[in-house]
């Protein structure tokens, strides 16, 4: 046994006759059949459920398609109409941007804050971790969005609580001023996923950096800014990109809380909600496809921009410091 184990590295680095690069290819690259066999469920899924529909929708975005009769080629008319002749489209863009800009930072701050606290908990940390993570598992479901709607509705818990201290809002769900905030709150409450990732990142920060800063007499805030944050910046970056993309695509909360209408007064008309409305209520599948591709491009551009800024503030350990 022992001998065999010991023998293995020797065997691996064995024949000098075998050039190194060929060997690597041999080991990892020359069994494509097997690889594809194991990958096949995923490949089938990707082709049928992702790539195929995407290409179809790209084609449909250049057509007038009402779901029932065959698509008519209209060139760029759908895209032109989006920007020239559809005030609700611009409304939906405004609502979505506001949502992304408010909910993403709040969610990340909440996630990081709780992660830092949990990082110090020594007893029962598994319990707290699960407890804080649970909303992320539940939160994407329609059921929770319905509960959320009831909580913030007229005569809901929040309304009754506020009324008890003399603030009458008549429910937030039906108020053009607060309706979007209800959906933001629902998103922020689901900070579990980024929190777990932050927590993993925090555990990676070498203790000696903290020891050193303690020796230097750094305040907790100073330690956070000069040690925790820079060391954690790759994780912050990762979470930022992911959560931003999620926020752009957010649908369920808005759909359920507003009863599918984006109301009141279009103040929760998310981009995806308007897209869905066009596609499935108003029989404008071609137009909706154009919207989907515009969204994809916008997300790609914003993500690329974030990557562009990352060089300035994301620090990877092992890189030369500045």
């Amino acid at each position, binding site marked *: 046994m022992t001998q065999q184990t010991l023998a293995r590295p020797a065997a691996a680095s064995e024949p000098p006759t075998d050039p190194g690069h060929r060997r690597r290819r041999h080991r990892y690259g020359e069994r494509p059949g097997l690889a*594809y*066999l194991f990958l*096949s469920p995923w490949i089938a899924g990707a082709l049928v459920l992702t790539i195929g529909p995407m290409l179809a929708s790209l084609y449909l975005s250049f057509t007038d398609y009402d779901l*029932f*009769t065959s698509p008519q080629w209209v060139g760029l008319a759908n895209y032109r109409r989006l920007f020239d002749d559809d005030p609700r489209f611009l409304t939906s863009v405004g609502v979505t941007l506001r949502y992304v800009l408010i909910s993403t930072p709040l969610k990340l701050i909440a996630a990081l804050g709780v992660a830092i606290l949990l990082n110090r908990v020594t007893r029962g940390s598994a319990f707290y971790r699960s407890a804080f993570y649970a909303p992320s598992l539940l939160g994407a479901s329609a059921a929770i969005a319905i509960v959320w709607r009831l909580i913030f509705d*007229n005569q809901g818990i929040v309304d009754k609580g506020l009324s008890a201290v003399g603030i009458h809002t008549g429910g937030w769900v039906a108020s*053009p001023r607060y309706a979007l905030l209800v959906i933001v709150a629902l998103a922020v409450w689901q900070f579990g996923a980024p929190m777990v990732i932050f927590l993993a990142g925090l555990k990676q920060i070498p203790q000696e950096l903290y020891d050193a800063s303690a020796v230097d007499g750094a305040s907790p805030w100073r330690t956070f800014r000069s040690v925790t944050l820079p060391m954690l910046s790759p994780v912050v970056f990762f979470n930022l990109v992911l959560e931003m993309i999620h926020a752009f695509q957010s649908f369920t909360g808005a759909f359920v809380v507003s009863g599918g209408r984006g109301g*009141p007064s279009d103040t929760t008309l998310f981009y995806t909600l308007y897209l869905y409305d066009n596609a499935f209520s108003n029989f404008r599948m071609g137009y909706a496809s154009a919207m989907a591709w515009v969204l994809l491009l916008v997300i790609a551009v914003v993500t690329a921009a974030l990557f562009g800024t990352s060089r300035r503030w994301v620090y990877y350990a092992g890189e030369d410091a500045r």
Partner: protein
Amino acid sequence: MRLRKHPYRVPRVLAVTVIGALLAAGCGGGGDGEDGRVTIRFDYWGSTERAQATNDAIALFEQANPAITVESSFSDFGGYFQKLATQIAGGSAPDVLQMDYSYVREYGDRGVLAQLDSGEAQVQTSGLSRQLLTGGSVGDKLFAIPIAQNTQMFSYDAAQWKQAGATTPADTWTWDDLRAAAQAVTDGTGAKVHGLNDFGGVLDWFEVWLRQQGKQLYTEDGRLGYTAADVTAWWQMSDSWRRTGAVTPAETTTKIDGTQENDPVAQKLSSATFGYDSGFTPKLWEQYGRELTAASFPTGTGKRGQYAKPAMMLSVAQRSQHKQAAAKLVDFLIHDTGAGTALGMSRGLPADEQVRKLVGATLQGPPQAAYEYEQKVIAGLDAAPPPPPKGAGEAKVAFQRVYDDVIFERATIEASAAKFISEAERAIAS
């Protein structure tokens, strides 16, 4: 020990085959048994109460036609039409489907519905009035047959009105009478309960008001039968009622979506509403915790403006594999007296004359009130206008949405009316 060269080598062909098989598995379809039995699907919108009645009627149908099995499912109105569109596009439309007046043209014009007055899916239409059938016809083709009719109705909590000292509706009452009564209820309850649901955002009630002035919602050639000035006048009326509290405030109004659970009357926030008489479902008194009384719409011109509306219609999908069986079910649900008794008033007043008489004699509770109301007003009802143009459903939704701007005071009434007109024109033009 050295590994053999390619211990687990799998031929590329095999990998490709597996992928292909997985792809193909996703595209397979089912079929029917070969013993002459067929299964047809029937989808409709409605409440659980309606579903129970419908299941009873379907059971009778299956007894009478042992070779046909009916699978049915139901959902709420909005979800139903969203699902239907996707199903039809995906080639999995139900064989028999419940059709709404405002969508007949949308679907009929696009060749999705089978013709019911000739061909494989022919259904006999004796016992149905001509006026009702026009509601299901596009051009000279019949695409949907009304199973029930309903009409616009005003309903109010008579006990609460009397207690508040409000004058209850008479046959010739006016919009001013209504306003005074609603205001009295609001004042009498210290604005805990408002006299009336804000009606300004509902296109259907606007339509009645328009018809009272000799106008119509859509012209014969499918264009808007009114202008921004009409919308402005209508909204000025409802807006001034809202400002004095006669109708519900904005936060309450914005949640009205046609379902019973979101009806301010059910939540005891309001004391009266416009609606359809088919809304008087058997358990309504228990669900609302109060009894309501039916009355016709107020008017100011001597014209009532209400019409016999083909409330729910049945259609057969053009791509159905079993058109004959589907037509049989449609025929049975509409004409069979047993089915009629099982369905009762669950879809409104039965369209078939014979069934209507039979059902009328057995009713009690809210459906009886609706039946009596309908019998009282039926002589004065107009014929249903032809089905509205494509996009009418979208215009209806836009009407309520733009009205939100008015009640939340985010835009002037004139600007909102102009905005709505441009949206409605866009909706029905495309």
